[in-house]
């Protein structure tokens, strides 16, 4: 929700960036995993899954999410439709 000031200057008020930056940094502190390591994990997961099924790389989303103080790795990996290939 942007305030009048935000729209006027095109800048986000600082509390919002504080919260967003903290959300990321806390995930990394709690899991002891850097952004780079998370990227590597993401690539590995995708590579393994792609060996078995055809995935749509555009829609892939693999992220650490938090629920209270618990972290979980959430993967949303859309599969390419097989029916299309069969009918075509």
């Amino acid at each position, binding site marked *: 929700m942007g305030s009048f000031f935000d729209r006027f200057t095109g800048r986000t*008020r*600082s*509390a*919002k960036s*504080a*919260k967003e930056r*903290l*959300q990321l940094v806390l995930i990394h502190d709690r899991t002891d995993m850097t952004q780079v390591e998370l990227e590597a994990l993401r690539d590995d997961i995708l590579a393994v899954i792609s060996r078995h099924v055809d995935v749509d790389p555009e829609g892939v989303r693999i992220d650490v999410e938090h629920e209270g*103080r618990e972290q979980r790795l959430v993967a949303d990996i859309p599969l390419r439709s097989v029916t299309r290939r069969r009918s075509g």
Partner: protein
Amino acid sequence: MSAKIVTITSGKGGVGKTTAVANIAVALASNGARVCCIDGDIGLRNLDVVMGLENRIVYDIVDVIEGRCRLRQAMIRDKRLPELYLIPAAQTRDKSAVSPSDMVRLGDELRNEVDWVLIDSPAGIERGFRNAIAAADQVLVITNPEVSAVRDADRVIGLLEAEEMASPSLIINRLNPNMVKNHDMLSAEDVLDLLAIRLIGVVPEDETVIVGTNRGSPIALEMKSIAGQAFRNIAQRMQGQEVPFLDLDNRGSFWARIQRIAGRK
């Protein structure tokens, strides 16, 4: 009756641990409880000056632990409240003078003397912090609505989880309601959302805190101080009472008051 031992810690320095200990202690003692504070910051003694007791020190925590005095001799009685005591930190440079098991023994001895033991933890996550939490039944983590303080609080909460201690409660200190309203400070809700532990108090930024520290007289004794009220509320919540959180958002704002009067808020 056996005392409850509560440690106040933060990770980051300068967020208000010592002030919080002094004020919560004063608030508990003015409710009639017997309270003993322990300054756990060996080498950097400070709780004595905040409580205005610096001229009364004879013995300190290391003297008790090493048997140079009896427990009661190291418990300095407060000027105003007859059942409030302080065990000061030693000013020695040797931080290994106290171990976690020493703290457990000291805590156990104090359980029979008072109703509450409040331990002021040093900043950091090393020996002094380990000592401060060793005997605790409950830990209060204090933070400011600011990125580095929140990050360090999260580290400390993680360490307490790893020790399998009872889940700590959170004090958000030095919240500036005007900055929150202008979206230039994390709100209490934001901090709570990030740290995800139970909230026990929100203390607004308040000049009377510094005035009280200057005088060595914690502002929890002053009925007109808003921060003092917030600390009194924390003490009451620790004693098991349900106290609503202060309405900080609308304070001081002319328009907010008009809106409230007009019944729109």
